[in-house]
């Protein structure tokens, strides 16, 4: 079978990942903000006897950029072997796309131009003469509308028929002569000698070193040039792009984005900007709480009604009583607690979150909050990583790659934990409902959502505080530049949003929790049943941890649960329940309301609840996040720091709460 390797290149947020997903039936994350994709992913599809391998690259504004995710893209284009580069452009702002097309044609022999988002361009009254553009560029041009899966068959066809051409020669004016001179000494079939010569003239250390290592260029004699090479190059490429686009685009309407600007004015207004953001957050929590309430208890009752049958069955197959106890009270109970209490809120929260992300709200939040970050000498894009953190801290940590400066990226990584992740919400909702709201009160859900919003608000304040302290101590420095594109609002495809967020996010996270819940439940069961001198190991551990708990305003079981819940936040409450049920008289858990009785019978008060919430929020990142932090920072020191900082803050806060309540 014939096989073609295709790289998807393009400026940020033009729909590369959307095209990639549609073609390869993958589920790469997409989102309406620049910098969603931060690594290269690979996917395949077979179409009419040809195997296509696609590489989805992070967006890049030009091929000489520096932020980490952009270097990934540029390096791939320059140094990897693939057959066709598809440059994806935004039909509503073609100039930037064509700029990138020209730069790509300088490096790649086989380029296909894909003009995406044509539906949006049509709506805005922008007309494009594709035939003329194709003639001027000398590459096949395919209009697509990836979200609605239009034009993709044509794109595949174009990829198949596109031919190798000579590298593009751009007229660099005064630089031409210098380029020719430098290019004479560069002998290579693989790369364009003129492009390499240009890198040498630009004195681009990164590429000079890389090409040197590859043996393409030899030791250089440093050249002194009086031109601003960078500016010259950009101007010349831009000029060429303008020439190419002359008479290609025509506008039917002038004020095509008036409505968008109006919405923007409201979302970023001086008085309403911040309150609206908090209100959106509150709304999401409120809907989650009221929406999850009923399905949760339904699931819970269903699973607990099966318990008797399961015990009977296990007795029937003659399992020893001890094993039955382990399986039912240990594993089964933990498992169904996780599923019934954690699943419904996640299933509701995740789609809403994805919807907001796709709509394009996140960059506006970053825009509103940047001033505060700059005061803390950090980057406004940190707000984007925080939003990601609300979905999952591990994703937030990886997402920090969009921040150019290493110092600011580390700050974003180390503070991401202050945003409680989706896996913590159900637990928080449960405890808040029990101790602060009560179950059947009229405004219970409103109060609960308000408290949750407050928790996020506190997290934001702590993020600022810690960012500031870090900038003044370990990660000293001044803020670097901040540039962020505010994309147009885009109405997401609702069905796709729900499908994606439920399947790829909620189920995925839940699966991870369930995987941990089984061994954890088993472990608790075992240490509760193995006895030394008539006292169970669990009892020993709890007694051992009790003094620590006492100082922090909680008890030994809570501490144990927080420690054992390290692999997944979702299993903390079930472990705690198992701990209580196994150290004290057993209460039958046939109903969620029993939770309250269990807690109260074990000495919980409002103070315990507050301290538990504090420790739960700020103990340390879960194991997945911690691993990601290590992968991203490649430093044991910063990984350790990411544990110490929240733990320290959590403990301090608990001590303060203890003083207040004493």
């Amino acid at each position, binding site marked *: 079978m014939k096989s073609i390797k295709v790289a998807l290149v393009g400026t940020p947020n033009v729909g590369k990942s959307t095209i990639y997903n549609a073609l390869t039936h993958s589920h790469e994350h997409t989102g309406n903000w620049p910098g969603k994709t931060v690594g290269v992913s690979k996917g395949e599809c077979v179409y009419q006897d040809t195997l296509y391998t696609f590489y989805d690259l992070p967006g890049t504004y030009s091929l000489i*950029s520096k932020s980490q995710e952009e270097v990934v893209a540029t390096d791939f284009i320059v140094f990897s072997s693939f057959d066709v580069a598809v440059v994806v452009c935004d039909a509503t702002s073609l100039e*930037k796309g064509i700029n990138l097309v020209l730069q790509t044609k300088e490096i790649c022999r086989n380029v296909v131009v894909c003009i995406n988002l044509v539906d949006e361009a049509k709506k805005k009254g922008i007309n494009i003469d594709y035939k003329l553009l194709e003639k001027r560029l000398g590459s096949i041009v395919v209009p697509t509308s990836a979200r609605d899966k239009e034009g993709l068959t044509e794109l595949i066809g174009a990829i198949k028929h596109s031919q190798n051409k000579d590298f593009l020669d751009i007229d660099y004016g005064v630089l031409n002569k210098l380029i020719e001179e430098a290019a004479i000494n560069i002998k290579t079939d693989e790369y364009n000698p003129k492009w390499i010569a240009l890198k040498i003239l630009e004195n681009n250390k990164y590429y000079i070193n890389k090409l040197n290592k590859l043996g393409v260029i030899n030791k250089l004699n440093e050249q002194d040039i009086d031109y601003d090479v960078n500016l010259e190059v*950009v101007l010349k490429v831009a000029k060429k792009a303008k020439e190419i686009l002359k008479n290609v685009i025509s506008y039917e309407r002038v004020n095509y984005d008036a409505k968008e*600007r109006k919405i*923007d004015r409201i979302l970023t207004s001086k008085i309403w900007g911040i309150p609206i953001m908090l209100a959106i957050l509150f709304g999401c929590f409120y809907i989650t709480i009221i929406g999850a309430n009923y399905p949760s208890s339904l699931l819970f009752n269903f699973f607990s009604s099966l318990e008797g049958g399961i015990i009977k069955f296990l007795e029937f197959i003659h399992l020893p009583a001890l094993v039955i106890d382990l399986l039912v009270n240990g594993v089964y109970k933990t498992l169904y607690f996780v599923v019934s209490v954690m699943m419904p809120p996640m299933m509701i929260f995740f789609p809403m979150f994805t919807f907001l992300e796709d709509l394009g709200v996140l960059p506006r939040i970053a*825009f509103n909050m*940047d*001033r505060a970050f700059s005061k803390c000498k950090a980057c*406004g894009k940190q707000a984007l990583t925080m939003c990601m953190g609300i979905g999952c801290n591990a994703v937030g940590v990886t997402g920090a790659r969009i921040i150019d400066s290493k110092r600011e990226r580390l700050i974003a990584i180390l503070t991401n934990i202050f945003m409680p992740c989706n896996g913590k919400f159900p637990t928080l909702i449960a405890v808040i409902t029990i101790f602060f709201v009560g179950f059947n009160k009229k405004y219970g859900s409103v109060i609960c959502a308000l408290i949750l919003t407050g928790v996020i608000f506190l997290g934001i304040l702590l993020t600022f505080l810690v960012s500031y302290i870090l900038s003044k101590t370990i990660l000293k420095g001044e803020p670097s530049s901040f540039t962020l594109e505010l994309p147009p609002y885009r109405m997401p495809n609702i069905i796709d949003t729900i499908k994606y967020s439920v399947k790829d996010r909620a189920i995925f996270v839940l699966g991870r929790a369930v995987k941990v819940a089984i061994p954890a439940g088993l472990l608790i069961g075992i240490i509760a049943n193995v006895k030394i001198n008539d006292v169970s190991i669990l009892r020993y551990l709890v007694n051992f941890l009790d003094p620590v708990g006492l100082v922090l305003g909680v008890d030994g079981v809570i501490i144990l649960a927080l420690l054992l819940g390290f692999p997944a936040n979702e299993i903390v409450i079930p472990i705690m329940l198992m701990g209580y049920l196994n150290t004290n008289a057993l209460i039958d858990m046939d109903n969620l309301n029993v939770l309250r009785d269990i807690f109260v019978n074990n000495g919980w008060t409002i103070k315990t609840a507050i301290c538990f919430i504090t420790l739960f929020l700020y103990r340390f990142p879960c194991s997945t996040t911690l691993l990601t932090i290590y992968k991203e920072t490649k430093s044991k020191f910063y990984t350790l720091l990411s544990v110490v900082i929240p733990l320290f803050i959590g403990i301090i806060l608990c001590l303060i709460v203890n003083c207040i309540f004493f």
Partner: protein
Amino acid sequence: MRLDNINLNDYVTIINVFGDTSIKRRLLDLGFIPGEEVKCVLISPFKDPKAYQVHGNVIALRNIDAHNIEVQNEVN
């Protein structure tokens, strides 16, 4: 005049871009190229950053970064 000084809804033309290589390169990449027309479209709640429209895109810049861009009023 520098870009950070212009008022909301003002149209200006870029004359020159200053600054060290990295910020300059970044600004050029984003489309802040001499000769290009720019408009200030949004101001954040704390007056900094502001967002500018430059060929079809809306881009947020901190004032300190926008200060690298020299502009002049539209002549028409």
